[in-house]
């Protein structure tokens, strides 16, 4: 099959509520009522996980975007949209948006008034001068790329490998506590990548496709898919499936809307998931509810797993997790008896030091129940899947010698090698101490680390300010991180202004491939691939002209994303489809389609799903899952005397993508203030009333948020939102848009990672809460006055 056939226009599945007057079957661009309509499948910015929801962008004859509507041609989103894309026009034309490069003296870092507008040529010249000077003295390894999440830039590894030529592409969250630990667990155990729930996204006709079996039981574990569209999964597919009969088990410390509708809700103490998973495995194995054939032919180490899980009987787990033991039995039986059953495991797995072990129990549950690569179970990518973002251009751009200098590679090879990333905590250490070598230059690739990604943010700010001679920010808006630490600002295009691709689930296990189409031009901005291409030529002309030798930025994107080099012509051809379903198949392991060598089984040393993991053992970790108490918690009663509550953080809302969108009034209106959830009995005891502001504190720091008194959490647990800053406030230091006032990361540590370097206790920590007299309620009139009038 040629690649052009691979990318075929997806078959439309019309929603019943959609009128007969609709845009089904329209081409990628058409005219309507004097407007030019461009159909597109966005990724970023604004940031979002790569779902690629269908969008129709309506542009008038002056080239202005006047309307945004969901595209009913997308087989998964079917015209539906979340508020963030609905408000895209407000984002694109926000008076706060920055449309031109700017410079500022190093001494003026933190001064919001010191920026001076410049052209791209001058910006490139300044970057080049600093790059040459710094790399001559300290080597290219002295450059760090601060990577974030959700934005295309956040995983745009070529910034490191090809553009700056540094091994230190670095996602700056302690322990890479996001997605990658889960990826690592399945990679080590089954030689494949993230096993997404099969929601029929890739099947023509979707749920009605004859190959599909509706999921009988969906276990949603430490995940809030409706609000977060996690990792490219269209969250409301859960609703579509519930309507078709899917029943839920929800494992969550919060009574989420889904938990309130679940057959079984296991409201566990945050951080105790691995104990729960081991107990469920113990029940399924001892009650003989597992898939004997799959275990016999395709699993390795079943006996050892059974033996290990027997050390965590359900009664013991019930005590650890704080849930009734009958519910653990019921959940294990319900999941094991489901045909098919599936698990959606979320970020909570990554945000604990015991998370790799949670990964082991989760994959083991999927495997021994025969739900891997089964319709309605977990989809697995075959050998042809995946896009080599991390390794792309690596050999010529970085090479083995420089790679060996990657920060953290010696101590945490498992972490650094799986995604070719410098270790986050050890990068902080390097910034603070100059060890193993000085870090002198930085570049923000879709990351606002001081507001969102990084723990102890003031410590990160101080380290960056002290260590970096030169730092570049590349974004759509000013943010606290760039304001505090950068010398150059470069303006980034939004989805409406660009072309490109979007592969759901970050490419592995892609369900749909989408294509972005440029509809408008705004200011003087660039995309990530354009900047990488242009700046690459400025900084490393020899390499880009001779070794890479792309004819255009578009060809670079085409090669990176589609594996073709046709000067953009191939892209243009397939992009007309806007959204394509990627052919999917089941039970590939029975036909040798999971391995490069074409043999049956899985791409692991033993050829089987390794319940007893040879990879874990090689990296010096226990090959079997084990439970470890959260370091900060009941295990230390002394600590709990001063910080008597369990703190869990970071539940999302649909209004914002992490630290983004706070300056979009219609979105801010959905959630004007940073919220901390407290149980009514706890609130009463502490003298806190609903809507009052409270101070939340831990041994590492404190912040203030607005109390929402609700039974959504239990009496021992506090939940606080993350990523708050206030773009309506003074941006200069020390206020810095109020960045450190309500920042829950003030309370969270660095350097408390798991044995392999993965995981941080961001969702299972301790805190105290006290009422305060002050109110910091957002003034929505001020928001509208400041940001309501579009430009």
């Amino acid at each position, binding site marked *: 099959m040629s690649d052009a056939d691979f990318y075929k226009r997806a078959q439309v599945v019309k*929603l*019943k*509520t*959609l*009128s*007969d*007057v*609709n845009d089904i079957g329209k081409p990628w661009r058409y005219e309507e009522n004097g407007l030019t309509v461009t159909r597109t499948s966005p990724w970023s910015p604004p940031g979002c996980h790569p779902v690629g929801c269908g969008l129709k962008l309506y542009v008038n004859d002056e080239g202005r975007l006047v*309307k*945004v*509507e*969901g595209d*009913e041609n997308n087989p998964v989103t*079917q*015209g*539906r*949209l*979340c*508020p963030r894309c*609905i*408000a895209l*026009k*407000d984002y694109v034309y926000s008076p706060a948006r920055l449309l031109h490069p700017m410079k500022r003296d190093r001494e003026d870092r933190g001064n919001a008034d010191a920026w001076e507008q410049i052209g791209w040529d001058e910006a490139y010249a300044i970057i080049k001068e600093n790059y040459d000077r710094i790399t001559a003295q300290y080597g290219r390894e002295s450059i760090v790329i601060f990577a974030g999440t959700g934005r295309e830039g956040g995983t745009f590894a070529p910034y490191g490998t090809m553009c700056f030529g540094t091994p230190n592409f670095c996602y700056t969250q302690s322990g890479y506590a996001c997605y990658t630990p889960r990826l690592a667990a399945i990679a080590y155990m089954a030689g494949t990548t993230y096993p997404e729930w099969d929601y029929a996204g890739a099947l023509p006709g979707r749920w009605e496709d004859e190959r599909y079996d509706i999921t009988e039981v969906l276990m949603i574990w430490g995940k809030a898919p*409706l*609000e977060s569209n996690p990792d490219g999964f269209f*969250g*409301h597919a859960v*609703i*579509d499936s*519930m*309507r078709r009969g899917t029943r839920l088990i929800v494992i969550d410390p919060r*009574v989420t*809307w889904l*938990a*309130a*509708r679940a057959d079984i*809700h296991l409201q566990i103490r945050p951080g105790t998931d691995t104990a729960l998973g081991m107990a469920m495995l113990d029940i399924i194995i001892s009650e003989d509810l597992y898939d004997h054939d799959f275990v016999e032919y395709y699993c390795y180490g079943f006996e050892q797993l059974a033996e290990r899980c027997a050390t965590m009987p359900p009664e013991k787990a019930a005590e650890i997790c704080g849930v009734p033991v009958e519910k653990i039995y019921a959940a294990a039986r319900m999941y094991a008896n489901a045909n098919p059953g599936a698990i959606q495991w979320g970020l909570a797995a990554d945000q604990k030091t015991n998370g790799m072990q949670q990964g082991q129990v989760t994959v083991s549950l999927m495997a021994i129940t025969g739900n891997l690569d089964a319709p309605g179970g977990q989809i697995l990518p075959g050998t042809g899947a995946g896009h080599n973002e991390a390794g792309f251009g690596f050999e010529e751009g970085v090479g083995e010698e420089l790679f060996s200098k990657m920060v953290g590679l010696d101590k945490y090879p498992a972490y650094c090698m799986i995604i070719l990333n410098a270790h986050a905590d050890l990068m902080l250490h390097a910034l603070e101490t100059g060890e193993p070598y000085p870090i002198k230059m930085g570049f923000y690739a879709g990351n606002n680390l001081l507001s969102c990604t990084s723990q102890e943010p003031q410590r990160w700010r101080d380290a960056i300010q002290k260590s970096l001679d030169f730092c570049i920010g590349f974004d759509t808006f000013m943010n606290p991180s760039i304001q505090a630490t950068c010398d150059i600002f470069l303006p980034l295009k939004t989805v409406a202004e660009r072309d490109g691709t979007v592969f759901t689930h970050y490419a592995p296990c892609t369900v749909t491939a989408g294509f972005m189409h440029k509809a408008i031009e705004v200011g003087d901005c660039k995309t990530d691939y354009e900047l990488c291409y242009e700046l690459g030529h400025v900084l490393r002309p020899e390499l880009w002209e001779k070794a890479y030798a792309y004819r255009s930025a578009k060809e670079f994107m085409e090669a990176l994303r589609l594996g073709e080099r046709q000067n953009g012509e191939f892209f243009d051809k397939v992009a007309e489809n806007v959204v394509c379903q990627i052919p999917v198949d089941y039970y590939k392991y029975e036909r040798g389609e999971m391995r490069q060598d074409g043999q049956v089984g899985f791409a692991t040393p033993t050829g089987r799903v390794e319940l007893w993991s040879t990879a874990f053992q090689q990296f010096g970790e226990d090959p079997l899952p084990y439970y470890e108490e959260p370091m900060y918690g009941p295990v230390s009663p002394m600590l709990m005397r001063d910080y008597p509550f369990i703190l869990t953080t970071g539940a999302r809302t*649909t*209004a914002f993508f992490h630290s983004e969108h706070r300056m979009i*009034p*219609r*979105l*801010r*209106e*959905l959630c004007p203030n940073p919220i901390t959830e407290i149980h009514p009995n706890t609130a009463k005891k502490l003298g806190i009333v609903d809507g009052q502001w409270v101070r939340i504190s831990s041994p590492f720091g404190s912040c203030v948020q607005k109390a929402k008194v*609700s*039974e*959504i959490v239990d009496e021992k647990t506090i939940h606080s939102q993350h990523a708050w800053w206030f773009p309506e406030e003074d941006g200069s230091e020390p206020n810095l848009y109020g960045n450190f006032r309500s920042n829950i990361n003030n309370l969270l540590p660095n350097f408390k990672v798991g044995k392999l370097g993965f995981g941080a206790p961001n969702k299972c920590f301790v805190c105290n809460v006290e009422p305060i007299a002050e109110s910091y309620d957002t003034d*929505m009139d001020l*928001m*509208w006055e400041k940001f*309501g009038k579009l430009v």
Partner: protein
Amino acid sequence: MSVYGLLFDYEYCTNCGSCQVSCQEEHDYPVGKTGIKVFTDGPWKIDDEFWNFNHWPIVTDLCDLCADRTAEGREPICVHHCLSNIITYGTVEELSKELEVKPKQFLVIPQFNPNATRGEFVSRGSRHVSAAADVQGTGAATYATHRHDTKIGELDENEGTIF
């Protein structure tokens, strides 16, 4: 003429906010103004096992059922964007049938800015015309409301004395 309304299947409203933001974008409403918004009740415990937790999208007095869109034969914008796909636009006749199919639904027929719709106050006009008469005085002022069989509370015009 058929009456149109919106059918909401609130069993699946997740409070995503798409209806409200869609409405504000479509009609260019500032913050604080919208044709639809979501109210929440819960979570609170029904008993040891079950929870009550519902969201309710409610149309306001600014909902015109997207008159411009429906004139073209399209569905209102909140119907188009609703992430859970819980809003149906149609005639009351059609929607009533749907209403019977499952519980946890409600049907709404909004009225756009009803106070404006009823127009300026206009009196119905024609009043009673009083009969012509030659009215004489009683000679005494009364400032009590009890029956006139005592003199209490009556002011004697001649003596100026209150009893």
